[in-house]
């Protein structure tokens, strides 16, 4: 593929191998100034490897990198920074206990008589940057106090702080809510106007369509296609990514509404929740939607007994849960799929099988002794059923891809005989193929009579999977919709607290 004449960044025949895998196989990619270039592909396609090479975290085995037409060597992060390449990583790279200003200028502090840090200048400059990207926080706020989306904006501010020529964004919207996404898109368009080239790595095809000028597809470390967005469609992109065309529609086989299984009554917590009440029936999927900071995760944790509850009650099949006891919750048949896979979900240095069986150890043990054979057979069932890609049950789970890790977590809860499961962002940061499978599973579980709560910030997913939608804003329930009555606009109105919807009004 001929490099574009005005390419800022031109990657030629880059290859990178790790023991056992060829992560990148002679891929090309060229990025023009002032364009948004989408890089898509399933997990393991080699996107992250390329990013890491460009960021100087990895070093390429073969190939050349041209910057403004001249070949460059990127062997350390600082090399790439000097060139003006800035990567906004998926797991955000900010220091929690430092202020926004410090984080923005960490690489190059403004100095007084080039010795000591000039705090005034630092905080003034930061303020300007925050204004340009329209982020309404003070530069002296400690980062750990910010929401994920705000942190992301800080990252972009950092990119702007030292005139980046190229900004690489790795799944920037995976943690954002729709209107935050809009905001991000506007910022990106601003960057475009400044002539900055943006490499936009994502799973979400609708974003490619909405935002990007060109799109390049990787699969299994190889370059599959690279074209103008205007000349392509989601369907062929999907085909390019997975090498086969897959069913993206949400399957709906479950119908029957059983009796109320989960009953949450005016639940309040010290920090966030205010009088949250709702019910979930057997075989029903309730989708809970809310913007960042609306209190979805807080609700999940409070229901499950991870966080302290101030007042209110949670009962399963009429039996009230003792507060703050996760062990009792699980015994009563309540499961919680956390949004933070690595941080709160998996025990990374444990094997696939051990992770799957963790909550169900009693079921596969007698007199406290774990039955090894049963453990393997039971977990093997799930590995097959979910087609989890792993060399063996003994593989440490840390070596699995994001999608497969998520399936392991799901398998963990399905092995345990549950009555209710809370899924918090079940498809965050996993690829199209895996996504569809997980949606299929949700449906399957519902049809088995399980009561399901799905917390999501992805509108299509919400509308796709839920029989019943609850919208939260600032810890309160501001909207309730049946599947039929649900409309994107109404949901958003409720989510930003502009208008409230109750069944009564419909």
């Amino acid at each position, binding site marked *: 593929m001929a490099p574009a004449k005005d390419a800022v960044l031109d990657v030629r025949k880059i290859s990178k191998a*790790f*023991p*056992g*895998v060829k*992560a990148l196989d002679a891929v090309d990619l060229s990025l023009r100034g002032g364009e948004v270039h989408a890089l898509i592909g399933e997990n*393991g396609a*080699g*996107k*992250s*490897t390329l990013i*890491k090479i460009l960021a100087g975290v990895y070093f390429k085995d073969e190939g050349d990198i041209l910057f403004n037409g001249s070949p460059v060597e990127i062997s350390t992060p600082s090399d790439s920074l000097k060139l003006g390449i800035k990567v906004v990583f998926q797991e955000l790279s900010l220091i929690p206990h430092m202020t926004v200003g410090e984080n923005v200028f960490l690489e190059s502090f403004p100095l007084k008589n080039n010795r000591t840090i000039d705090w005034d200048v630092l905080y003034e400059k930061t303020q300007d940057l925050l204004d340009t990207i329209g982020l309404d926080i003070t530069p002296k706020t400690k980062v750990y106090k910010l929401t994920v989306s705000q942190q992301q904006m800080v990252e972009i501010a950092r990119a702007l702080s030292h005139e980046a020529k190229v900004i690489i964004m790795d799944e920037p919207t995976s943690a954002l809510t729709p209107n935050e996404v809009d905001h991000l898109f506007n910022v990106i368009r601003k960057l475009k106007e400044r002539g900055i080239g943006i490499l936009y790595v994502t799973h979400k095809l609708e974003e490619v369509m909405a935002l990007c000028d060109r799109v390049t597809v990787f699969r299994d470390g190889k370059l599959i296609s690279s074209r103008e967005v205007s000349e392509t469609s989601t369907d062929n992109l999907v085909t390019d990514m997975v090498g086969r065309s897959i069913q993206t529609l949400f399957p709906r086989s479950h119908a029957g509404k059983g009796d109320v299984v989960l009953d949450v009554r005016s639940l309040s917590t010290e920090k966030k929740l205010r009088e949250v009440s709702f019910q979930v029936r057997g075989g029903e999927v309730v989708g809970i939607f809310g913007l960042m900071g609306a209190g979805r995760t807080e609700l999940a944790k409070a229901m*499950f007994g*991870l966080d302290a509850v101030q007042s209110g009650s949670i009962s399963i099949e009429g039996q009230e849960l003792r507060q703050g*006891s*996760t*062990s009792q*919750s*699980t*015994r009563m048949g309540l499961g*919680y799929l*956390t949004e933070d896979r690595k*941080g*709160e*979900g*998996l*025990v*990374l*240095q*444990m094997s696939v099988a*051990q992770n799957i069986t*963790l*909550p169900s*150890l*009693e079921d596969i*043990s007698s007199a*406290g*002794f*774990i039955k*090894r054979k049963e453990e393997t057979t039971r977990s093997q069932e799930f590995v097959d059923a979910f087609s989890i890609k792993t060399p063996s049950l003994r593989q440490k789970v*840390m*070596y699995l891809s994001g999608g497969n890790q998520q399936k392991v977590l799901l398998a*963990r809860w399905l092995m345990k005989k549950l009555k209710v499961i809370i899924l918090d962002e079940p498809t965050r940061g996993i690829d199209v193929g895996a996504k569809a499978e997980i949606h299929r599973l949700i449906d399957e579980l519902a049809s088995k009579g399980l009561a399901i709560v799905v917390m999501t910030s992805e509108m299509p997913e919400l509308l796709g999977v839920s029989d019943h939608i609850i919208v939260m804003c600032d810890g309160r329930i501001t909207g309730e919709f049946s599947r039929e009555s649900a409309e994107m606009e109404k949901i958003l109105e409720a989510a930003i607290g502009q208008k409230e919807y109750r069944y009564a009004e419909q």
Partner: protein
Amino acid sequence: MFSSESSKGGLLTKLVLFNEIILVAVLVVISAAISIGTSQFYSTSNILNILRDSSMAIIAGIGMTMLLITGEVDLSIGSLVAFVGVVTMDIINKTNSVFLGVLAGLGLGAVTGLVNGLVRTKFKVNSLIGTIAMMMILRGSVYLYKLEAVQNYHQLETFYSVGNGYLGFMPIPVIIMVVLYVVFLVILYRTVPGRRLYATGGNEIAAKISGIKVDNLKILTFVANSVFAAISGIILVSRMNSGQPNAGVGFELMVISGVILGGTSLGGGEGTLVGTLVGLLILRVINNGIIILRWNQDLQIVISGLIIILAVYIDNKRKVARSKIITT
């Protein structure tokens, strides 16, 4: 650089991937070296003496291993050993019953463990600091309890044999150690609580979410650890035939060193009892060897220090080699 070599996956690398094998090799080499220097090393009496003497450290090591696996540590066991010894001897003197004395000793251990556990889980005090403090508290308390070494007034044979007696040709402490060791080997690798220890150390929140009562588990482990230390203390007091308030100085560091030498990570979630056994034996054999070779005793700490660094270095090499297999 080494990682790229070792990740090529030769047979040697494969061996490097199993820490215990290296340790066993180290143990063999050292033993061989010593036995070249002196013939007494392989005498049954010396082997038994090494075993009997290390049994105290190994028993404490079982508890410490489990504690480190949950991601915690306890520096107070040295002082506890002294306190338990004094109390046990004193109670036996007063009641003339070995049973009551041992009971008191174990009780004291359990209480100490409970306090350590509560300070960690309820006060959220980092266990390193919390148990340094407990180390001071216990050392102070033992002297407040008895300023003088407690002599053996009761002269009970059963008490004496706990530390010095034999069953057949096997020293009784060794038998106690072996029994405990086997039992906890099984518990750690074959049972639900064992699995939960690893899960808790590996990822506390994940463990919580999986319905594990993390705090209770940790408290329990602290108690177990202290009780094991108490058992070592009882064996020691029987061997010394007097309750010494100044006993067990540096015991905690020696035990922890051995456990870490055995490949248990300070981060929690990883560690094996096999490694602990070998690790502690290595340290004991070094000390024993240096004396029977009539070398300068000060070499004991120097060599132990170097061996630990070396072992951890190899262990890292192994970990890096493993981690290089992670793909994108």
